[in-house]
């Protein structure tokens, strides 16, 4: 890496090498990105044009986790979830929180806001309040958890096995329906968008 002979204190030499590399502002050449950005945009548009009209559609087969929320079967792409936890009493309620928020759970040092999935996405007449939540499904990278009463199974799903939602609707979280299972597929990004800003 350098022409120095690394005698004496290797570590000190190395540290000063690194200090120097990250020391000053980068030279002009690096500071002006210009063209490459536009090029990236062009390429991206070209790619987008090849994808189907539904903004929710997956191009490739994917895996989905099926779970039940107050008796209603739902699915979510597995890769957009980071896991599921058994129900726990460690969820702390927050004062004056909306009733779709159950509370906050500290999991691996991070605050996970647990939402009452049913109250967020099911019509109120479908909510079977007697059914207890037994699991929390964690969404990827967003520090949100969804309550559910049971985890069912993981399915391999072909894009054509889904009736993708083409137009906006009052249920932005719904990406489409799994035809065979008659069950709604959640768009995790849209759902996260509905959840809005930080709670506490």
């Amino acid at each position, binding site marked *: *890496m350098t022409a120095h002979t690394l005698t004496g204190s290797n570590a000190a030499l190395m540290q000063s090498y690194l200090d*120097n590399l*990250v020391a000053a502002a980068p030279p002009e050449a690096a500071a002006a*990105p210009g063209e*490459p950005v536009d090029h990236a945009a062009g*390429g991206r548009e070209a*790619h987008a044009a090849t994808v189907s009209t539904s903004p929710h559609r*997956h191009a490739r087969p994917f895996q989905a986790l099926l779970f039940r929320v107050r008796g209603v079967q739902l699915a979510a792409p597995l890769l957009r979830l980071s896991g599921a936890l058994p129900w726990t009493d460690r969820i702390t309620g927050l004062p004056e929180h909306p009733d779709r928020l159950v509370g906050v759970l500290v999991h691996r040092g991070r605050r996970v806001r647990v939402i009452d999935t049913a109250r967020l996405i099911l019509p109120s007449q479908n909510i079977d309040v007697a059914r207890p939540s037994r699991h929390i499904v964690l969404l990827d*990278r967003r520090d949100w958890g969804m309550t559910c009463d049971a985890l069912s199974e993981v399915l391999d799903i072909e894009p054509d096995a889904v009736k993708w939602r083409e137009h906006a609707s009052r249920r932005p979280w719904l990406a489409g329906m799994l035809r065979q299972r008659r069950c709604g597929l959640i768009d995790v990004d849209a759902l996260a968008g509905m959840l809005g800003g930080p709670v506490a």
Partner: protein
Amino acid sequence: MSARVWAVANQKGGVAKTTTAVALAGLLAEWHQRVLLVDLDPHASLTSYAGIDPDSVQDSVYALFDTPPGVDLIRADVWPGIDLVAGAPALATLDRRLHDAQGLGLVLASWLRDLRDRYDHIFMDCAPMLGILMVNALVASDHVLIPAQTEFLSLNGVRRMARTIAMLDRSRRCRLSWLVIPTMYDRRTRAAPQTLQALRDEFGHRVWGEVIPVDTQLREASRAGRPPSEFAPRGRSVQAYRNLLAFMLADAQPREALA
């Protein structure tokens, strides 16, 4: 949305850095995530993997260190949804050419900053040696992925990376998050479980809890020039990379600034 930037690095060679970068990029692209791969290796095996002859590449990362850069570096859709900044043999000369290296560790970070809203994930594939390019990758990244082959000699490579990252943290007054990924795990050997245990003993929670198993399909995928998830979607190594990805997205902590 702002891209998450990952450096894939290990000062030891042949540990599955390039394979890991392509495998993860392929999986993300299947999910319509926009991915940029950056080849920082003079051997440019990532570029070759993408079917591009590195010897023919004019517009490599090298141009970022030239004044003015003046060329488009990004090749769109080398695989569906995956863009590439190519590597080239000329990269090997950077350290010698730029002997006055002050501030040159920040070049890539500054360039990528303007690309962050165009991608969901950016992976930088490093060469197995410490130098200007690896420092650039570490500086530009939110997280470092350190693939480590599960065999006896691999511990040293990880140690060296940990030391480099610690020093760089000191230079930059921040703490970079890093994750060791045990790769090429072969249960039938004695070395694999022993090395895995040694890695866990020494690096604790920084070692991913699962492994990427040894799987000849990975080599076949690279020979075919296709991302593993497309070549063998149900292969065991692809499943393992899928698990890794789920873990990365959920658990990796971004860089912390030190007070």
